[in-house]
């Protein structure tokens, strides 16, 4: 399929290309899953209790299966699988690893009302998640690592644990997030909050949280704290649906999990996303829905680019030299970093600019937002310049770059009504950052210990000697 650049630079909505790239991702995930199942043929007998769930998941095609195949839980599970391949796992570790997958199979069976009999395993925190739904089972903490039998059907379901058969409330499992835990006799059915249909706030899922390594995760001290986190994000998403429907459609299609982070320094926002946890955005709380929207868009753009790069590298392979100036950093970066930064902040700048056009803000906030947009325009231009000076691109990559320049022009257009002094201040700040960290007007990075003792011809201005 010939990729069209506009939908990848900006939010193009759920078009044919978006679906095609998603199918490619699903195809890759299923191929890896097939490989994992093949590897199980040599596993001990106990491991094969988990095969039904794996085989069931592979055997069922359709939109719900494909959606789950793109869930961050499966992304991370496959990452762990590739790391463990060939290693000697203990029985307990193998049970945990295979048992974690079953939540995806169970969620699929629930949605399709299929019959499924498989084994599950309690995670180290005492839970079993039906990934792709907001629901999970809470076991006593001391049951961590234990296996149980899981049976699902169109009308009935059960968990057999420690010899006891516990009926599962299928109507609740197929419904929205529960407001309170549902006791099931030694085990409880509980739910994560949803920020939007299909997007959970996850501060408890062991598999997904295991992959969050860059920042401290936040456990909500109270229900109201968690509710507030979800509510602000929900507002951010509903605003986005009005102001940038294409972007919103893509973001809510790809994002399945929002992980709350700590913000120990009290920065405006702390956030991250991971190449092996596509569909999970990790972010700290903020009361401002627009700030949360900015963070969501930033991280989503990184995820979107990672999806795109798996089908077209944009930059020709082999250009990983870490020698370039970045307007966002003090250290040298690779061209790929400039590409991801330019793409993310272009979209952030355009969204904030559009919000300024359409909404009323107090004067102080209006100024802050203008500063934000003007700063992003300078930074994006610097990054695009560095890429254009030094990068070699694929055919699609060349079109992608030109489109980014065009959209930057649109962003500049949007700032025409901002106070000139404000724009000048951001330009000066950008130049000062470049003066400190770039090698003159090149796009190369200049280290802190840079020495410039090269002789130059004297430059005389009138009146000087």
């Amino acid at each position, binding site marked *: 399929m010939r990729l069209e650049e506009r939908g990848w630079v900006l939010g193009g909505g759920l078009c044919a290309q978006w679906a095609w790239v998603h199918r490619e991702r699903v195809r890759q995930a299923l191929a890896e899953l097939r490989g994992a199942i093949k590897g199980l043929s040599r596993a001990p007998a106990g491991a094969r209790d988990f095969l039904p769930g794996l085989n069931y998941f592979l055997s069922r095609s359709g939109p719900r299966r494909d959606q789950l195949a793109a869930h961050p839980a499966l992304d991370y599970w496959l990452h762990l699988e590739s790391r463990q391949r060939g290693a000697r796992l203990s029985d307990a570790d193998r049970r945990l690893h295979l048992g974690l997958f079953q939540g995806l199979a169970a969620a699929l069976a629930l949605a399709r009302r299929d019959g499924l009999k498989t084994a599950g395993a309690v995670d180290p925190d005492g839970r079993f998640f039906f990934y792709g739904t907001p629901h999970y089972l809470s076991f006593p903490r001391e049951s961590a690592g234990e296996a149980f039998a899981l049976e699902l059907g169109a009308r009935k379901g059960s968990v057999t644990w420690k010899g006891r058969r516990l009926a599962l409330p299928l109507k609740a499992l197929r419904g929205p997030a529960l407001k309170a835990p549902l006791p099931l006799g030694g085990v409880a059915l509980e739910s994560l909050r949803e920020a939007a249909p299909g997007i959970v706030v996850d501060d408890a899922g062991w598999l997904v949280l295991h992959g969050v390594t860059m920042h401290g995760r936040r456990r909500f001290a109270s229900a109201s704290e968690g509710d507030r986190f979800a509510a602000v994000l929900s507002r951010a998403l509903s605003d986005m649906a009005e102001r940038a429907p294409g972007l919103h459609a893509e973001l809510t299609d790809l994002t399945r999990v929002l992980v709350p982070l700590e913000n120990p320094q009290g920065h405006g926002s702390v956030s991250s996303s991971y190449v092996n946890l596509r569909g999970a955005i990790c972010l700290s709380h903020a009361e401002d829905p627009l700030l949360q929207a900015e963070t969501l868009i930033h991280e989503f753009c990184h995820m979107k680019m990672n999806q795109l790069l798996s089908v077209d590298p944009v930059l020709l392979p082999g250009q990983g030299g870490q*020698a370039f100036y970045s307007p966002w950093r003090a250290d040298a970066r690779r061209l790929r970093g400039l590409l991801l930064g330019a793409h993310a902040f272009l979209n952030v700048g355009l969204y904030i600019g559009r919000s300024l056009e359409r909404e009323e803000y107090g004067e102080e906030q209006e100024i802050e937002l203008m500063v934000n947009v003007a700063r992003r325009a300078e930074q994006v231009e610097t990054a695009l310049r560095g890429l254009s000076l030094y990068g070699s691109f694929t055919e699609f990559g060349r079109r992608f770059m030109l489109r980014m320049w065009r959209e930057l022009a649109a962003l500049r257009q949007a700032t025409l009504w901002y106070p000139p002094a404000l724009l000048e201040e951001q330009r000066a700040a950008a130049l000062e950052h470049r003066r400190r960290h770039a090698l003159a007007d090149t796009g190369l990075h200049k280290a802190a210990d840079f020495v410039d003792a090269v002789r130059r011809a004297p430059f005389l201005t009138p009146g000087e000697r």
Partner: protein
Amino acid sequence: MNLKQRDDCVRALRDCFHKERAKGLQELLSSLDALLPAGRWEIGLCGARGFSAAALRYFGPSLPDGAARALGLSAPPGAPPAGFPRLAFVWDFAGAALDAPRVYGAELKARPFRPRDFGAPVAPALEAFAALCPVHDAVIERGSARWALRLAETLCWPDFLRLDIAAAFASAGGQSALLMRDLRVGELAFDGEALWAHAGS
């Protein structure tokens, strides 16, 4: 590069980094200039050792007797194939020592570049490199681990720094660009321990 460019490079090395330690190199080159026929020069930077090592290679006609004696050679060396350097000086600034000059002869052979000749894990890296920077030929020294890739088209220094294979040079990126100026990389070489990038005009 011509003598002016060579001396500008050496002066930059001295003024920016090595001060007195580089003085000996400049003095040696000045004494040789009186003896060597007109030719061209290339500078090489070592990725692993950064600016603590530099190579200067001389491309020109055969060495006259006077130059050979000044270099401590018992007899003028035989001719290397066309396009190869006659002499190479490697200067270790850390120890302020000039290695004995390398004199090239018939041991160098150029052949078509085939990544598989280099074996894993080097072959895939060189293949990716050649996709971005077409290679004219490979020079493999018999009986040693040394090799060189001569490029079909030279690269300006920043274009070289962007490559995966230039990772060893990246940490000195801006500094090296100040030194290399408009010199262009024409050869990527491996001395058995580290990668070198050789650049002329």
